[in-house]
């Protein structure tokens, strides 16, 4: 399986987005120009410039204004966006992208290879940690002509193309940023991209309004006149808004899982949990290995066996998302279905703990652990309460600590916790999104590194092999081996392959067409009459 061939294949084939429109047309529904999409946003993003801020809500809005070279199908195949086509050298080190013609920024300036190179080499490299790590591998980036970008890597890096989604490497106008402090440049307040919608108005605390970009490079598109993102901090108000038709779309965290069944039952609404394949967040109980007895593998295994993941998926998330079996999500490349954590078995868990020498006291308590509840919404509090009960069954008293986002991030970053919940985007490839949590070289006092402090030289070695190899087969072998080890040693207790419900009015079409779901440009989204 080579990416280059698939990429070329995709490039020469029809664009999937358009295919969907054609599907619609085949059903007798012509894309209709006009109409304003009102949707919501939780929480309100601080700025709308990708790179300066890469939080979820920022990505949702900014992906309408900014584009990158590629996008990805649910199976994570690349789809051409600003890159019309591309080739990859057989040694996996040289990438040549041919850009779309006639692409203009919202300020009317044409987008050229210079903008692409600036975005990669300067803008994102400086601003974004994720880009910085990968783009450090680039030896040179040149523009033989205004519509061609040639990138040479120092070493092969097979997941390289996955970095060219708008969420990772949005193409920004060089002429508005070059020579300035990127974070404070005026363009940050009035974002200028190449996307189908341009920034119109932002009343903080109230709404963000995007309007149709008339000079968009796809003729006739986008179909919508405007998109309004309303800031609605209360989940019940959001549910009301979608129910009463005040909004036509909800995404990400907008709707709490327990509201999903009721909304599924609404005839005018469609509930979709697809569109998160690129991110594929996996949630887990994050254990701090520095805290005894969490350094004991048997204890971790016992805890893992004490958790009823089906209960969590069904009762807490109401079927949005599914139980995790493995550190690599089933939607991420190189997932090995053969590697599985031990099944839910309270008796075995108790036996394991007995064997590990943790005797229960008179109250039936073996030991006490603290749990820092993830402060990202009520559902995580419910999860904490469930875990408290589940741990109790195996004689572990779990003491909940609630906190706010500020304290949570600091404490996890400073390793000042015993257990907590975390969920992490996988970005399509274990090298990009899984490795960082388990390799000992990434034990740092920063969130989203190996904050748990797990260390296994064999695991380090396997991840390194997979990272450096250009051959997917070798990578698969290494990843399979590492998944087996991790399932055995359970450095973290994986809970769910998460998904988020995208709920929209049935009149709204083409909402989820790629593996990025609502984080795409919406240039083919339309409202039927």
């Amino acid at each position: 399986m080579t990416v280059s061939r698939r990429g070329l294949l995709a490039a020469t084939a029809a664009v999937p987005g358009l295919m969907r429109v054609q599907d619609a047309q085949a059903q007798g529904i012509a894309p209709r120009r006009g109409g304003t999409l009102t949707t919501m946003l939780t929480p309100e993003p601080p700025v709308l410039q990708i790179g300066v801020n890469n939080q979820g809500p920022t990505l949702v809005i900014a992906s309408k204004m900014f584009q990158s070279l590629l996008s990805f199908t649910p199976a994570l195949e690349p789809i051409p966006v600003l890159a019309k086509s591309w080739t990859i050298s057989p040694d996996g080190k040289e990438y040549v992208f041919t850009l779309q013609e006639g692409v203009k920024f919202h300020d009317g300036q044409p987008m050229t290879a210079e903008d692409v190179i600036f975005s990669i080499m300067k803008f994102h490299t400086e601003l974004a940690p994720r880009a910085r790590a990968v783009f450090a591998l680039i030896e040179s980036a040149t523009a033989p002509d205004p519509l061609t970008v040639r990138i040479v890597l120092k070493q092969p890096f097979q997941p390289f193309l996955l970095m060219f989604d708008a969420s990772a490497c949005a193409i920004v106008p060089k002429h508005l940023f070059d020579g300035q402090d990127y974070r404070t440049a005026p363009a940050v307040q009035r974002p200028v991209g190449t996307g189908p919608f341009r920034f119109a108005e932002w009343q903080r605390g109230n709404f963000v309004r995007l309007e149709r970009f008339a000079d968009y490079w796809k003729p006739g598109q986008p179909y919508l006149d405007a998109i309004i993102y309303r800031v609605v901090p209360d989940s019940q108000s959001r549910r009301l808004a979608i129910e009463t038709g005040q909004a036509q779309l909800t995404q990400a965290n907008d709707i709490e899982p327990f509201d999903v069944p009721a909304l599924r039952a609404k005839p005018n609404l469609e509930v979709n949990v697809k569109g998160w394949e690129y991110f594929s967040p996996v949630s887990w109980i994050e254990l701090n290995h520095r805290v005894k007895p969490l350094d004991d593998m048997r204890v971790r295994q016992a805890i893992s066996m004490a958790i009823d993941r089906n209960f969590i998926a069904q009762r807490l998330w109401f079927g949005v998302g599914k139980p995790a079996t493995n550190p690599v999500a089933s939607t991420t490349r190189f997932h090995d279905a053969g590697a599985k954590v031990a099944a839910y078995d309270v008796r075995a868990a108790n036996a394991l703990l007995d064997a590990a020498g943790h005797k229960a006291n008179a109250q039936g308590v073996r030991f006490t652990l603290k749990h820092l509840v993830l402060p990202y919404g009520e559902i995580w509090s419910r999860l904490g309460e469930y875990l408290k009960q589940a741990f109790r069954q195996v004689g572990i008293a779990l003491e909940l600590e609630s906190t706010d986002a500020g304290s949570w991030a600091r404490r996890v970053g400073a390793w000042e916790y015993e257990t907590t919940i975390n969920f992490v985007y996988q970005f399509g490839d274990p090298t990009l999104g899984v490795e960082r949590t388990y390799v000992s070289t990434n034990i740092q006092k920063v969130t989203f590194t190996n904050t748990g402090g797990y260390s296994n030289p064999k695991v380090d070695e396997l991840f390194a092999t997979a990272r450096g190899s250009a051959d997917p087969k070798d990578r698969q072998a290494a990843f399979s081996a590492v998944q087996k080890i991790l399932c055995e040693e359970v450095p973290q207790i994986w809970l769910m392959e998460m998904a988020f419900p995208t709920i929209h009015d049935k009149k709204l079409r083409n909402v989820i067409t790629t593996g990025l779901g609502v984080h795409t440009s919406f240039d083919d989204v339309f409202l039927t009459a």
Partner: protein
Amino acid sequence: MEVSKLLGFLLRRGVKAAVVVLAIVVCNFLLVHAAPGDPASVIAGQSGAADAVFLEQLRRQFGLDQPLHVQLWIYVKSVLSLDLGFSHRQQQAVSLLVLERLPATLLLTGAAFVFAVTLGVTLGALAAQRVGKWADSLITVVALTFYATPLFWVGLMLVLVFSVWLEWLPSFGMSSVGADLHGLAVVWDVAQHLLLPALTLGLFYLAVYARLTRATMLEVADQDFVKTARAKGVPEGRILRSHILRNALLPVITFAGIQAGQLLGGSILVETVFAWPGIGRLAFEALLARDYPVLLGVFFCTSVMVVLFNLVTDLLYAIIDPRVEVAG
């Protein structure tokens, strides 16, 4: 009250208020910075990816690499020159952020305040007039009910009834976005959005005012000068209006002055339930994101408002009650 006296009073009170506000600024600064976590770690925690360089960059940019007393000194200096600082998180001047949100809060709290005071005083007066009769009992029971019910609960119930079941009023927001309204239509639109939150916020205080007015009216009605008025043959209605009510309003005004400032705090809950884009929520979100300059800006703003309200109250009091010298 002569003009020179008034000016002197304003000057004295101004100086005093400035000292109080400055003390609050310093205290808030220390309090806010005592909270664990900083904006950089929050951003890192929410970006899905971070590294040490990233954190270091952010902290340097936010000025968090300086010692705390230096940060405090810089902040106090800038506040003294009426510069509330810059939110690096939102890439906006704090004064802009706060001013952008302030009108919404003022509208909400103002409407709730006016509603609570006018209706509360009216009901309280009515109850006092009919003390012991069924109207009094009814008003007392209603007032107690609102007084004892959690604010957010009232909000939820109102939404359930008026937005969900009856579908009369919008359930959240301050205006219909994108409806492209002009002139009076805008006012009407905002008024519709305003009704439920203002009612929610106002009902509690309505109860307070009703009870307070009733109690003070009964107290005043007992006083000698009311008897004097009766002995003069003044009709009961006039006694109520120009003798009892006027005197009973004094404690109501005092209370209103204190409470107007607290209203800003109470609006956080209502702003959350109704997605009202005001400074209460701005502060709450800023707190969660450790956006110190914004949080401090809101605190500064609210304490200035409270001080202003107190000043207005004192002036009003001095106008109504000649006994009060505006001596500070």
